[in-house]
């Protein structure tokens, strides 16, 4: 783990308590790509967010997969203030991304 964190708050990009728009997910993905260079721990903060849908989460998860190493993500990525509904959606989106895009023999895990 790094000693410093890069934290991004979903609520700063979403107008209400539901993160249901892919456009907002894309803005967050762009913000991460602009500011996170893999040199800190990365934390996504879901404070004041009740639900995220797959259309929103897809944008962020895809950006993470396509721009950072999976080994690093497993080491340095975390989420906070996350409820069960959000967790279920994020897991579902990650599992789906892996099923569709990642070869089982891929050893970059």
């Amino acid at each position, binding site marked *: 783990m790094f000693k410093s964190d890069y934290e991004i708050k979903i609520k700063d990009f979403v*107008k*209400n308590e*539901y993160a*249901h*728009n*892919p*456009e*907002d997910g894309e803005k967050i993905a762009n913000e991460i790509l602009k500011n996170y260079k893999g040199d800190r721990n990365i934390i996504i903060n879901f404070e004041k967010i*009740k*639900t995220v*849908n*797959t*259309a929103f989460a*897809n*944008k962020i*998860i*895809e950006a*993470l*997969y*396509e721009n950072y190493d*999976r080994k690093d*993500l*497993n080491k340095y*990525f975390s*989420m906070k203030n996350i409820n*069960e*509904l959000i*967790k*279920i*959606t*994020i*897991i*579902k*989106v*990650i599992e*789906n*991304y892996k*099923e*569709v*895009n990642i070869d089982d023999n891929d050893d970059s*895990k």
Partner: protein
Amino acid sequence: MYIYHFPRKINNNFNDINKVINVYNKIKKIKDNQITLNFSDTNWMSGELVALLGAICYNIKHKYNKENLYIACSKNIETTFQSNNFSKQITNMQIGNTKTTAIEYKCFTEELNNNNLNCFDDYIKKELNEKLEFKQEEIDYICLFLSEIFVNARTHGRTHNIFCCGQKYPKMNKIKILLVDLGIGIPYNVRNRVDKTMNDIQCIKWSLKKGNSTKIENAGGLGLYDIFEFVKQHDGNISIISSNGQFNYNENIEIISKENFDGTIISIEFDYTSIRNIENMFKNIRKEKNFIEF
């Protein structure tokens, strides 16, 4: 003047919906500028079908430029149109009784044109909270799944012309919601992206499978699959009409209709009492998986 008399009963099934689409397809072709949709003999219409009627009225006026559109109705149908606020939005009639089991009819065109992307969430939240008195966590859960259909309509359908209406059926413990978009339709998208030889029903079924998406990005294909899983989990049903394809999950109907609908109609129903058990559902999921691994 062109007058179409609607039948005595209009239920939310393919047979009756096709009759309505048939009228719409005829109106598109006729030259007469004065149209009357006559519901004087109709004494029952499933409330959620008002979304389809609203979508059709919208296109008759705005796409086919038939300005003089009239609706005549029986007392029963007038009550239906008043309870879901359709009459007020279409004719500016005042509504009487606000104590209702209807989920209000709404056209989202104007709000989406003004870039209010939260309009659907705000609408569902208000309807479920104020009128149908659902608890907050139940509203969050229902809103999450319904948002997937709405986002699909505006992003894949590439349209702002989206219409919704619903009805609570207390005796059956069911809520039925109809969402209609006047976009490019599922078959057009799927054929362009996947396989030009697929027919309309194959395209609809393809879109319901996990991981299948017509988006160019690598992530996706969970929206319709998720809503499909939602209705299965809550003793519900889903039916989809898009172009000539008509699919109904519970009744195992997969047909290519002779009636073409230029857009997509998604009808979902679910047992709202089963949603009271959200905490238990989460416990089961927690047992299955509780960590995130890339």
